């Protein structure tokens, strides 16, 4: 019989599996809604990268901050934001997490310390430094988890932020989701140094490359990194190698890569891999995966229904909340 610790670890993994499934189904449903023009603007899907968000966010405390890029639905859901409120934000409705003012790229939830999705590549790494100053001053071991993509590492703001975080030993976990393409441009075509983590080594912080298709590996690496940061040892840099199965946004015809590449990554799919390993270990019994899938499908359907029924923001709200009192 498994020890209590082993059992709880397994329960945790089932929860992680379920969260990854929720994110994927959510994104599929968002794509459907986009195709039916229920969602406007840009829509950047997280499908394929679920293990990074779930592995990393699941290691956080409530008083930690999360700040992210514009492909952030997965991070928001992993942080516990209501799928209905996130979907309603994609719909631009008043029940959305940002009242319909932010949209897909700008999800906010102050209560969960989710400090935004940000859509200027690299910019929010500097914001993360400021959140970390506050954590450092509070002195309670709180950290900032900052997600960004491989495209951000050639921005000046990336280097400004890493340097400052290191000089001031700020409690930031810089987590690069390297999905190998900045929009349609492969990393090796535009980066003098392809291994992103090596960039951070120049700023005297510990770095590590982790398999971003393995939620357990991500969780372990993030836990180690957080332990280091919470001791006051300064920032930590993780590069998670991952892959988005869909285009950069819904408008992407994907002329820059071939189907084999996507197919090869799909063979290492994070959800499928974890499912097989949990079934093999007997943690997931017969039919349990399908039951989870049915649960998740229903939850996402309810989220879409919430979004559909959420009212438009009133026109007279256009000029409100431009300035704080």
């Amino acid at each position, binding site marked *: 019989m498994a020890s209590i610790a082993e059992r709880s670890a397994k329960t945790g993994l089932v929860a992680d599996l379920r969260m990854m499934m929720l994110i994927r189904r959510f994104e599929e449903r968002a794509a459907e809604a986009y195709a039916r023009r229920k969602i406007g603007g840009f829509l950047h899907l997280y499908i394929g990268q679920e293990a990074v968000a779930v592995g990393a966010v699941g290691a956080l405390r409530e008083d930690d901050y999360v700040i992210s890029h514009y492909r952030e639905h997965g991070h928001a859901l992993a942080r516990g934001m209501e799928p209905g409120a996130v979907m309603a934000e994609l719909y631009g409705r008043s029940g959305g997490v940002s009242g*319909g003012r932010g949209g897909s790229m700008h999800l906010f939830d102050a209560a969960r310390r989710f400090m*935004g999705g940000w859509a200027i590549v690299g910019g929010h790494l500097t*914001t993360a430094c*400021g959140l970390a*100053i506050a954590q450092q001053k509070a002195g309670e071991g709180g950290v900032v988890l900052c997600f960004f993509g491989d495209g951000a590492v050639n921005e000046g703001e990336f280097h*400004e932020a890493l340097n*400052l975080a290191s000089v001031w030993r700020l409690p930031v976990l810089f987590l690069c989701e390297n999905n190998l393409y900045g929009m349609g441009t492969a990393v090796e075509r535009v980066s003098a140094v392809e291994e992103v983590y090596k960039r951070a080594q120049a700023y005297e912080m510990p770095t590590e490359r982790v398999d971003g298709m393995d939620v357990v590996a991500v969780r372990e690496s993030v836990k180690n990194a957080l332990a280091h940061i919470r001791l006051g040892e300064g920032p930590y840099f993780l590069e998670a190698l991952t892959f988005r199965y869909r285009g950069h946004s819904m408008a992407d015809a994907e002329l820059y890569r071939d189907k084999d590449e996507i197919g090869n990554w799909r063979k290492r799919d994070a959800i499928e891999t974890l499912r097989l390993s949990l079934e093999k270990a007997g943690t997931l019994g017969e039919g349990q995966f399908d039951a989870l899938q049915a649960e998740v499908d229903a939850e996402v359907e309810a989220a879409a229904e919430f979004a559909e029924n959420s009212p438009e923001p009133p026109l007279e709200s256009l000029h409100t*909340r431009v300035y704080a009192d």
Partner: protein
Amino acid sequence: MAEITFREALRSTLHEALSTDERYFMMGEDIGAYGGSYSVTKGFLEEFGPDRIRDTPIAESVIVGAGVGAAMAGLRPIVELMTINFSFLAIDQIINTASKVFYMSNGQINVPLVIRMASGGGSQLGAQHSHSLEGWYAHVPGLKVCVPADPYDAKGLLRTALKDNNPVIFIEHTALYAKKGEVPEEHYEVPFGKADLERVGDDVTLIGYGGSVSQVLQAADLLAAEGVEAECLDLRTLRPLDVDTIVASVKKTNRAVIVEDDWRFGGFGGELASIIQEQAFDYLDAPVQRICGADVPMPYNRTLEQAALPQPEDVFDAVMAIR
């Protein structure tokens, strides 16, 4: 009433904030060990320590970005960007981030951040160190923009800025740091969006802000000698803007001359002229005039530089031409 410099008015106000509320802290290039490039923060590092007086790398984007993040987390950072010229390196953080947090988050998160910077030409610093682009920041919803012209307003506006719950761009004209003026001992604040009626007159309204206020006041003296009584407005803040005072004055005098160091084309003066024609068209007896900086990168040569900046005589001539 004591006479103190513009610099001392700023210094004492920052000191007051740092002394009374732990949430205030400062970040900027050479504000600590060096004492501030305009000596505003001299002695602060020794008094408040390196945790609250933070010397930064020369990295404007992360200086402002870190200020935004700290403000989002409930602190009240005061950021110094040395000069407005360097603020362009942080424009992503000022415009794409600071000004938008409150609106985009639907009011969940606000940014109580003061960003100080020196501006203006006239010191032979050449084209890259002589900008007066206050109007750029005034263009952006979500920001507030202060342009004090004397020690009284420097103190009063900075007090208001430090209490404000939004990002405030606080612009200090370099020619003003050594300027002296009366500042009361007792506590006072200067509210945003209230222009200062510096001089009352019936013949023409002269409008200036920041560095150009002194040109306006000198021009009014020249005009008075010719029997022309100019009403002089110091805008104090560009956003919010005191539209009511501007319009009321022009309705009384029927003439307006706008004076600014910034370039004319697409500048803030054009916005003022537009507001005046929209709201006081029937009262105007002459076209609104603008006296602005020359439409060139600032030359280094002293004679050329002075020719590129608005002078009291230029304002005088403009008024005499439309009266």
